[in-house]
């Protein structure tokens, strides 16, 4: 119960902060849209401005505090509002974009976490200098290069160079939409490079994290005792080392899981993927306040929810906490 109340307070505080930060951002949505009309429809400014004012259901003259209370009142009834630029319901846009982001991010997170944890344990257990150096070098390279640059390099290699995977889109325009095998395979085929991009750039983090965690566990008495008892390496690694070392990683994976709902604007733009990141980037550049608020609300809720789930699993995985 205490946790739930803390979550609720955190959410309200975050909402408050996000709302006022968004409102304080430089850039007037009416002027921004008018500029858009001028460029794309080649309209004179006065016409573009009046069209923008009509198009946006937004009155800058309403005091910001009043707008905040109206916003909180709306979200308490499940109404995230209407996108200023697209006119559609924010909830519809968020829910429509979310599956694409979830598909790519959840598969890549799962893969990088599982592979990272296994490799982390292996590196820590083996204590091989060569392996350690290789992992450090990998971390230095892929931890410092931005993910969209890695994604671009993957496209150059696998799409342009080898022609193995498509460079853009979520599926081919020739397949029939729906739950059919051809569509599913095509979606996975198109998701291959985005998944690989996330995987490659996040893997080292999990390896290093797990390795560090294992190193601290390896010094514990119960490991030495297990070795002294003559238990098999397999049992020590999985039942003693892995199980204890993975505990701190659960929190990290929960936070990563929550954050992935925000997508990656740069990667999604590069792969022309219709996910949350693409809409978030568009909303920010157009100063589409309701869409931005809706996106951030979803990210906040998911991070908090993931934290709660992590707590739950933490107590399941760690009997000491359960007893307390």
């Amino acid at each position, binding site marked *: 119960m205490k946790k739930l109340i803390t979550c609720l307070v955190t959410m309200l505080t975050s909402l408050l902060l996000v709302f006022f930060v968004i409102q304080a951002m430089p850039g007037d949505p009416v002027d*921004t849209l008018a500029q*858009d009309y001028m460029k794309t429809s*080649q309209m004179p400014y006065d016409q573009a401005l009046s069209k923008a004012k009509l198009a946006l259901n937004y009155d800058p003259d309403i005091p910001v505090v009043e707008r905040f209370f109206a916003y909180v009142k709306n979200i308490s009834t499940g109404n995230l509002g209407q996108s200023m630029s697209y006119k559609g319901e924010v909830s519809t846009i968020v829910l*429509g974009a979310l599956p694409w982001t979830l598909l790519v991010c959840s598969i890549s997170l799962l893969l990088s976490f599982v592979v990272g944890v296994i490799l982390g344990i292996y590196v820590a257990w083996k204590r091989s200098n060569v392996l350690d150096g290789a992992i450090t070098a990998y971390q230095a390279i892929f931890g410092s290069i931005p993910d969209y640059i890695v994604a671009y390099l993957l496209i150059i290699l696998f*799409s*342009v160079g080898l022609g193995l995977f498509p*460079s853009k*889109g979520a599926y081919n325009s020739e397949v029939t939409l729906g739950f059919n095998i051809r569509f599913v395979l095509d979606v996975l085929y198109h998701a291959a490079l985005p998944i690989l991009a996330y995987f490659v750039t996040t893997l080292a983090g999990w390896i290093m994290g797990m390795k560090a965690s294992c190193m601290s566990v390896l010094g514990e008495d119960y490991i030495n005792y297990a070795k002294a008892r003559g238990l098999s390496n397999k049992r020590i690694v999985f039942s003693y080392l892995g199980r204890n070392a993975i505990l701190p990683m659960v929190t990290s994976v929960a936070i990563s899981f929550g954050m992935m709902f925000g997508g990656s604007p740069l990667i999604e733009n590069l792969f*022309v993927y219709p996910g949350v990141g693409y809409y978030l980037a568009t909303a920010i550049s157009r100063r589409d306040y309701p869409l931005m608020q809706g996106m951030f609300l979803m990210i906040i809720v998911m991070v908090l929810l993931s934290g709660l789930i992590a707590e739950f699993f933490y107590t399941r995985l760690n009997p000491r906490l359960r007893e307390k």
Partner: protein
Amino acid sequence: MKKSKLSKILILSMALTMTVTSFIGCGSKSNATKAANSQSIEDSVTKVATTLKNAKLDGEKADVNGTVLTTVLSFTPAPAGHGNPAVNGGPDWSMEPIIYDYLCDYSSQPEKVFKPSLLEKYEFKDKVLTLTLKKDLKWSDGSPLNADDLICNTFMDMTVNKVAYYADSITKKDDLTIEIKYKRDANLLLDYILKSAVKYPATQYGKWANTFKTAFENNRELDDNQNYKFTKDGDKIVADATAEMNKYLPDILTIKCSGAYVPTVVTSSETILERNKYFRTKLPIEKIKGIRATSTESTAVSIMNKDYDLEGVGLSPDMAQKVAQNNKDTIRQMVVPEFSSLGFCMNVNKYPTKDLNVRKAIAYIVNKEQIAPVSEPGMRLGDEYGVGLPPSVRDKYLSKDFLSTLDNYTMNLDKAKELLKKAGWSEKGGKWVDAKGESPEIKIAGVGEYPAHVVMGEAAANELKEFGLNATFTPKEAAAYNDYSISGDAQMVVDGFGSPTNTQHPYEAYDGIWWYGKKMNLEFPKTGGLVFKDEITGKDFNYTQKEMDLFNAASDKDISKVTEEFAKFFNDNMWFLPISEKYYVYRLHNPKLSMPAAPTGEELKDFYWSGTTSAILGKALRSGELYYIK
């Protein structure tokens, strides 16, 4: 011991790698400086010796069946995408020329032409414009396209086509004909109405069009210039109907199209447009495949993958050069005018640029000839007289004799020094200081996402600094730039005053003062027209009155006469320093694709070759001038 040795080796190799990388970085910088030579960039991008020299190809036409043309299209995918062209997320400027047809196809080059497309004919006589549609026109679902649709579209776009401000009445004469009675006899009115696309079927948009019609007929009044404006009630009626219409978001795959092609598939990355089987002419290509461009990188990948048959995407000079060189046997590059200027809006109300002599000195310091061609592929030298028009339009209305009477702001450092001294400045230790002995900052700002803004801003700041002025350039995020550019903080902002992109008429360029004037920090009166003081002559310049004179001018001679007055005013006062006229490079990648005749690598002045990539594509498709050869 072994471990420590390995760590040392690792650290050493990483340090070495970083050092080598830094040196490589430094090396590439000096190369970039060397490459930033106007002639080299211009030659490398648009004057690459390509095998094919003309957009039109000789050869027998290929069979239409199975032909697909791939290009760049802008569209919004699901879940935000829809089929209402009046609302963001619906078919926009990019898709419009392909899925909708126009009353007339338009070009201002080489002469102004309205070539009837949906119209059979039009007549403008005694302030009455009569529009007659072709017979048997149909929407893409087979339903008839008639005068009711024409009326509906006229009211739906009534502020864009200007009937809301200048027309007395709009009436249907018969099933194919409507009549618009105007208050004025200005030929410019035709530019706004005849170029309209027919996008709104009366069966779907009629109820909102009727509400607009009600406001048009009952809720307008005359303004100071004897043009119409909506009353407060009228504004409310229009606003309410627009708000309601904005909620109409049909699926794009179900909409009726008046144009050559109809969207049949839309994914996140591409759209397929198929031939409209009810279109009035036989179309030369079976399908158009539009690939959505989200970033320069994704477009570059598509170019590397040879996805496009044609495109006109803005690439960096380096990238454009690579594309041209790597494909010189197959590529054709057309240089298409956009009729827009890019340069610096001067803040006329902030020190030191509030001083005319300082503004003029800056104009003489900046080397326009060097910056223009390197700012973006296709860019040409802007108007060196600062008259507020791009050269392609300027030279149509202003004679060489007249221009010779104006100041020519081609780089001249001696003149700049002279002007600064006149302003009370002096040179001390290589720096210029004002009468107080200070070196005031000259802040320059531009949009960081636009390469041309960054190149221009940085280059101008460097040149001013080299001269001895205290100039800085700050790139900003686009929306933040909008706010900043009108805040009055910067002395110069990169922007595009003097851009008659729509009509190529001086009126449109000078009317831009309402937007760009904010960036010049001009003071706009709350009521009444604009009257500015000419700092050279000391006389009042009645801007609003002269704008109306320009709007009403009936002949080219009359237009020239008023344009000369504007040109003199802008030349005197240096509110806008033009750097470039915008042209862009239209690339044909498919060597079997024939387009309307046009030589490669030259600045085009042609009926077909102006406007956006889609506008050119649309015109060529409708006319049958685009096809594949065997």
